[in-house]
């Protein structure tokens, strides 16, 4: 019987096995990198807006409080996106000829809001509530990152379930004092002792026990 496998077959077999192993490693590593990169979650990508609105200009340079424009967050679930009238409180007198602001003037005269492209948009099966967080002193930049430095608005990080839970398991370091929810320069507390933690939670009447139950966010 003629020989089926020549001596070189051994080398080919080894090469093929090596290639398969490398391919598996590359797939796993690049898959992991892709999963954790911004591509999947649109992190750091600013969608195109009807007006090139700049938070850096308005909230950063002009020091306008977040609540001047997002004024429903303290009482309701939604922080709210500004209506065209809110822009017109200033732009009825300032930059009245600017081409960039034409959609604002048009929406205002037609009595309708501007259709902003959403940036931070949780899936509809998640329940989120701004008032519950602002009430106990969790601040805007703690969740939304340095918005006051964004020329165009983007997600500073992925708003995953793990991210919510990280804070819900241990919220104490993020509880700001009264009147500081819109401050830019506040940093989370570090190196808290157990008694300091309890004192912070008690001062705001926060009970983390039920914050990790599924029905808190999925109802």
């Amino acid at each position, binding site marked *: 019987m003629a020989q089926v496998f020549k001596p070189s077959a051994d080398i080919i077999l080894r090469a093929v096995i090596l290639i398969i192993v490398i391919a598996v490693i590359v797939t796993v590593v690049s898959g992991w990198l892709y999963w954790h990169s911004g591509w999947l979650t649109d992190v750091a990508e600013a969608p195109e807006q009807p007006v090139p609105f700049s938070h850096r200009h308005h909230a950063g340079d002009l020091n306008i409080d977040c609540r001047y424009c997002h004024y429903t967050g303290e009482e309701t679930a939604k922080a709210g996106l500004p209506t065209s009238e809110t822009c017109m409180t200033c732009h009825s007198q*300032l930059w009245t000829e600017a081409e960039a602001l034409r959609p604002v003037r048009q929406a205002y005269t037609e009595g309708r809001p501007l259709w902003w492209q959403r940036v931070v948009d949780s899936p509809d099966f998640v329940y989120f509530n701004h008032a519950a967080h602002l009430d106990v002193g969790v601040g805007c930049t703690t969740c939304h990152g340095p918005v006051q430095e964004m020329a165009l608005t983007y997600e500073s990080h992925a708003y995953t379930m793990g991210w919510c839970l990280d804070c819900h398991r241990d919220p104490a370091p993020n509880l700001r004092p009264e009147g500081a929810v819109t401050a830019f320069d506040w940093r989370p507390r570090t190196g808290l002792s157990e008694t300091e933690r309890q004192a912070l939670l008690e001062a705001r009447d926060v009970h983390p026990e039920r914050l990790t139950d599924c029905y808190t966010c999925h109802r």
Partner: protein
Amino acid sequence: MTGRHLLPLLLCLLPLAACPDMADQKRPDMAEPEPVLRGPTSSLPVPGTVARGERSAWDVLKDRPEMTPALLERGRERFNIYCAPCHGVAGHGSGLIVERGFPAPPSFHNDRLRDATPGHFLSVIENGFGVMYPYGDRVRPADRWAVVAYIRALQLSQHAQVSELPEPLRERLP
């Protein structure tokens, strides 16, 4: 596995293909045009209507609340958010937006506005005044008295007479 077994298996998987995306449910979200009339999803109530279980704006506003440190503190916070960009933190009428070219409002520290009734301030907040737009949608009725109380405190801070100060404070003046 034979084709006879494969077919039912594939049929079982078919309903999965029709699964709706639960992340985007069939309801218009904020900042999306409402699907039928293409109008806004949230609009202002018809003027003069009051939501069930709520008090009308007039009902909240008609009695002046007691002046307390808590009321003044609330007023300070609201004033700094909604008024200070133009009127300035001390009410002189030179906020950052005015520095960038917005017409300057009058200072709160003149005789006319010192003598103005609280009702005048309440009305300016709700209805606007000249080139100033109304702020009634942003400063809720319950907060308007707080803002007026704080403006009064600002006015006093710039117009106090030495003779009105209590003795211990007067002695500390240079």
